[in-house]
């Protein structure tokens, strides 16, 4: 034993390589050390990065970010080109936006697909279709809900979404803060938002599915802030319906209970925002008689209920376009379609939770 224990040190001193046990043992020891070092480095770096990310507190809360984005559009005039892309499908429009401190006006002129010009003054919206010489006039009350809703105690958005600040990017020639709105559960999608650094104006937004998959993107390809947009000119264009057939889109407000419907089980985070019936057709068909709207503050879901028609309806089906998903299922003598910017699983829960109470 004494001889064996003496041999390695003697050979090391001599620098000989003829004895394998003597030469390889320290080599393996060094090798194991290197291996551990590499593995430790590989594992430690992401851990450190995650710790750093987790430890970095956002400079603004989610509510503050959303309020800032809202205020930006209420206090700025701008014009630009907006591109909406979902998969292989891309739409684009030219935007003019102006405000006078009291009113906001906006003109959206499509550059792709059918020519349409939409002009909005606060919640009042008119859409011109030059090809059919038709103009739809409507009032969208949902446009006035925010940001007042953000300031109330009923604002539950932070309970279901978290916010992360991801640094600064350059979008359409402007420096923008990049933030990520991360859902706290699998019932809703996430959002990645680029807000112009000085004003907070949203210049790019992505809707993200599971695993961060990109479902839809809305982005300005070109944006001019403080553009010379004249409100008087937009007002004049909005009121000029000469040569157009004007259709007024109205909806009859009701309640789900009054129509004989309720949810057996509430879907976490989603609150009822309104219910209406007998709205005129928008797409040429009139398949639904009831629309019940839910929202968690960022995502919205519409539940459509109509009489079951074996000629038109069959087994359950689901569909998707961009971030908008739909799920349809027969419920006794009715055909129920849930539709919104949420995962199909959430829509399925809505449909399966709906029940007839009379």
């Amino acid at each position, binding site marked *: 034993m004494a001889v064996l224990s003496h041999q390695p040190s003697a050979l090391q001193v001599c620098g000989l390589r003829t004895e394998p046990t003597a030469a390889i043992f320290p080599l393996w020891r060094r*090798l194991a050390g*290197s*291996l551990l070092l*590499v*593995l430790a480095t590989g*594992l430690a770096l992401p851990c450190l990065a*995650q710790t750093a*990310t987790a430890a970095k507190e956002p400079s603004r809360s989610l509510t503050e970010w*959303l309020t800032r984005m*809202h205020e930006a559009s209420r206090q700025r005039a701008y014009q630009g080109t907006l591109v*909406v892309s979902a*998969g292989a499908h891309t739409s684009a*429009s030219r935007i003019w936006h102006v405000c006078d401190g009291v009113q906001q006006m906006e003109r*959206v002129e499509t550059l792709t*697909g*059918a020519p*349409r010009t939409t002009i909005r003054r606060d919640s009042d919206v008119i859409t011109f279709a030059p090809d059919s010489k038709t103009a739809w006039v409507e009032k*969208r009350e*949902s446009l006035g809900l*925010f*940001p007042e809703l953000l300031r109330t105690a009923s604002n539950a958005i932070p309970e279901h979404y978290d916010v*992360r600040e*991801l640094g600064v990017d350059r979008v359409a020639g402007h420096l923008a803060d990049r933030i*990520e709105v*991360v859902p706290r559960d699998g019932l809703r999608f*996430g959002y*990645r*938002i680029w807000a112009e650094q000085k004003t907070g104006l*949203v210049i790019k*937004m992505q809707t993200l*599915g*599971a*695993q961060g*998959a*990109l479902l839809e993107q809305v982005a300005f390809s070109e944006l001019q802030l403080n553009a010379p947009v004249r409100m008087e000119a937009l007002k004049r264009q909005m009121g000029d319906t000469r040569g157009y057939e004007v259709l007024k*889109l109205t*909806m009859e407000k009701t309640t789900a209970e009054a129509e004989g419907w309720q949810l057996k089980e509430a879907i976490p985070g989603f609150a009822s925002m309104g219910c209406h019936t007998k*709205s005129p057709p*928008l*797409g*040429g068909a*009139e*398949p639904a008689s009831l*629309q019940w*709207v839910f*929202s968690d*503050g960022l995502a*919205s879901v519409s539940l*459509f209920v109509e009489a079951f028609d074996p000629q038109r309806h069959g087994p359950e089906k*689901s*569909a*998707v*376009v*961009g971030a908008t*998903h739909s799920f349809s299922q027969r419920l006794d003598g009715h055909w129920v*379609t849930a*539709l*919104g910017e949420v995962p199909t*699983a959430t829509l*399925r829960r809505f449909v399966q939770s709906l029940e007839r109470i009379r």
Partner: protein
Amino acid sequence: MLLCALLDGELSEAELSDWFSREHDLSDAAVHGQTHQVIGDVLRGQASLAGGTSARVFLAGVHARLHFEVRAEVGPQEVILQARSIEVLPVRALAANGAVFRWKLVAGVASLAAVMAVSWTVLGTTPAGAGPGASAPQLALSPLSPQDTTSTSATTPFVVNTRQGVLIRDAELEALVAKHRHYGGVSALQMPAGFLRNATFDADVR
């Protein structure tokens, strides 16, 4: 004088052809040309009498370039032969410790460890999804969660792009989408992004 006219761009084509057909002492012509250039610079107040590239140097450069290009056109085989001869040469000289087996062993194991460490890191961070790694493109990942798997088979896109434009596979669903965007767009992101998105997107769907 003809040379001056040539430099000033005032020589007609016929006069130019006549001038080239005659024999000239090019060195004299070059001297005359340089003199003309210097006089012009002085008159324009841009004199750089000693500076600039002399006409001789410039001409020498042109000749050298012409000579090179002519050689390149005439001798492609020579170039190929040169390339082949280069291929014969060893690409890299052997490392000083190349003959020592244990260094090869060390290099192999270290490479394996590095690959394992990187793979471990990548596999460990990908499931985070919404983390920093999520900003990278993930084209191969399904957008549906495991809960959605049951409905994946029935999920179909109902907007298709064709040469004639966008076609809707399901007109009733199209109407519902339009209604949802008009009356159901209740979101803090609706203003301004949501409204603009709907107004832009609806035109194609409607």
